[in-house]
């Protein structure tokens, strides 16, 4: 009975804050757009009864998503951008985590602090700061012009490159921390053992360090990939009109077009796409805890 009470609380929480809102979104996605407040119909009313209400729901909006190429292009483009940024974040994050794990004991808390420090400032402000850095007259262009590397300012802001920079910057800590945790636990004598058995430094890294930090790498990749896929703020602030991402499409459906049913359909499909990596992530975490 006590066990049931213990589980009941988090489940009630999930039910109230995730499942119920999600079901509402699903319901809206099955409705039709209407000029009313809220802007969709049918509205549920007790007079007509539940049967009549359900009869009016249909999958029209989902069919529409497959007909307009904008949506599947946005999904694909989001997947691609999320994938590439995950790889980039990994390539930058791994050496950072490795350096932190190899740093002397007294330096580690400071390095850890530096990784966490950006969270003390609002995410939005940090993205705005990047606008100031990347714009035509921004710090980066001014610096490059001053050093003489370039003679005309580069166009970075409002391109996909800026989106990559934004995502990599924002999600780097989520990549670094799990990898650092894995590398920190790595027993140094394993590397020595590998060298003792004939490995060069490099092959010891490939054969021991990388496989030993595998769980950290996988966790980091999911932690970057999952939020990056639905990212809205970064592409709309840094990416300009040229960058197509599903988060931005979703925003525009809701607030510019006021087409709540289609926007909800987009959200439901996005969630279905995200369920796959989330399940894989959960399984990885579970396997990691079993191995310990």
């Amino acid at each position: 009975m006590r066990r049931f009470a213990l589980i009941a609380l988090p489940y009630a929480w999930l039910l109230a804050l995730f499942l119920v809102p999600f079901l509402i979104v699903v319901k809206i996605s099955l409705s039709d757009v209407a000029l009313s407040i809220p802007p969709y119909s049918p509205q549920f009313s007790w007079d007509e009864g539940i049967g009549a209400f359900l009869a009016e729901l249909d999958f029209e909006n989902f069919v529409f998503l497959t007909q307009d190429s904008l949506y599947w292009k946005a999904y694909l483009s989001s997947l691609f951008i999320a994938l590439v940024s995950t790889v980039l974040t990994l390539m930058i994050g791994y050496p950072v985590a490795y350096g932190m794990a190899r740093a002397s004991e007294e330096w580690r808390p400071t390095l850890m602090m530096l990784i966490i420090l950006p969270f003390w400032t609002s995410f939005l402000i940090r993205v705005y700061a990047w606008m100031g850095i990347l714009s035509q007259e921004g710090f980066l262009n001014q610096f490059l012009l001053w050093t003489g590397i370039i003679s005309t300012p580069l166009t970075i802001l409002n391109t996909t490159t800026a989106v990559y920079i934004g995502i990599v910057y924002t999600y780097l800590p989520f990549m670094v921390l799990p990898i650092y945790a894995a590398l920190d636990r790595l027993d140094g004598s394993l590397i020595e053992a590998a060298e003792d058995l004939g490995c060069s430094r490099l092959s010891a890294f490939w054969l021991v360090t990388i496989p030993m930090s595998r769980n950290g790498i996988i966790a980091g990749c999911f932690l970057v990939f999952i939020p990056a896929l639905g990212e809205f703020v970064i592409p709309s602030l840094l990416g300009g009109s040229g960058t197509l991402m599903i988060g931005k499409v979703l925003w525009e459906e809701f607030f510019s077009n006021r087409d709540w049913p289609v926007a909800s359909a987009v959200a439901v499909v996005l969630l279905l796409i995200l369920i796959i990596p989330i399940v894989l992530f959960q399984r990885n975490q579970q396997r990691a805890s079993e191995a310990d």
Partner: protein
Amino acid sequence: MNSTVFAPWEDPEQKPLIRFQNVTKKFGSFTAIDNLSLDIYEREFFALLGPSGCGKTTMMRMLAGFENPSSGQIELSGRNIVPVPPNKRAVNMMFQSYALFPHLTIWENIAFGLKREGKDKETIATRVHEMLRLTRLERFAKRKPHQISGGQRQRVALARSLAKAPTLLLLDEPLGALDAKLRQDTQFELMDIQEKTGTTFVIVTHDQEEAMTVASRVAVMDEGKLMQVATPDRIYETPNSVYVADFIGDVNIIEGRSRFLEEGQYEIDWAEGQQALHAATSAKFDNGQTCYMAIRPEKITITADRPEAADNCVQGKIHDIAYLGNLSTYHVELPNGTIIKAQTANTRRIARRSFTWEDQVWLSWTATAGVMLAR
């Protein structure tokens, strides 16, 4: 000494396999190894013994190539190995933590070194199987390290380090993580394997019993220096200093002043109102020189009556008895407060023990039973 006894260190013609030449190792201002020279011969089972921080692990890590000496030279088969990196040395190490790769199976762990040599699959499979059989691990080949017991892990570590057939195998506290019973069995297993493979073993340990059991020679170290290098029996019977005598086993140390009696015979005046002790030694002592008498408890006889014709004889009262099952150690307090330990085998049942607390007893030993030491 007959010719079949293995003692290459006594043969000046023998070339040592390992030669430390005036090796010094400093970590900052701390001197871990202090101008040390040592020869180790082929097929030896050599033990480096000492308290923690004495430099024994540093010696081993220098042999493996993980540390380089600050000065001096280390030779392996006549070649200076100081500039050779660890992965190019014909030396393998068994780590204290075993350092098994947790993401690989037992089979893959043992094959790890062989694969790095680029051997073909068949050779590797044969060699791994051979190692599995040697260490009786055939049944566990497919398991991961966390799925086997500590004793089995220890054997995997041994098999892995032996797989490449190294010229020299280093063992860093190999049995430290095992419980006492398993440790004893494993000691004999190690000796068996060492004999079967003919590999030179260098073992680092702080457990003197372990060193005595397995080693052909033992080096007792303290503060980066070698205190004594000799066979286990010599170390035990004829330690060269109070430090070595005290480090190995149980011992009574009696401080006194030497008095020359005749060639090889000395008297030691050691306490007011006590009869001088009589000792035989081949070393030379000056009259009145401070000296120490080291005598093992089991070499002291304990009797109720004064024994006749004993070289040394003192009377005291039993202060304490340590019952060890097979042995009993009596702590006998002399009238001047000195405690002397005497040990006897419990050949009779405990109910019929001859002495008990507060009994007046006589302790006696011969002139050759103890060792007279200058320091």
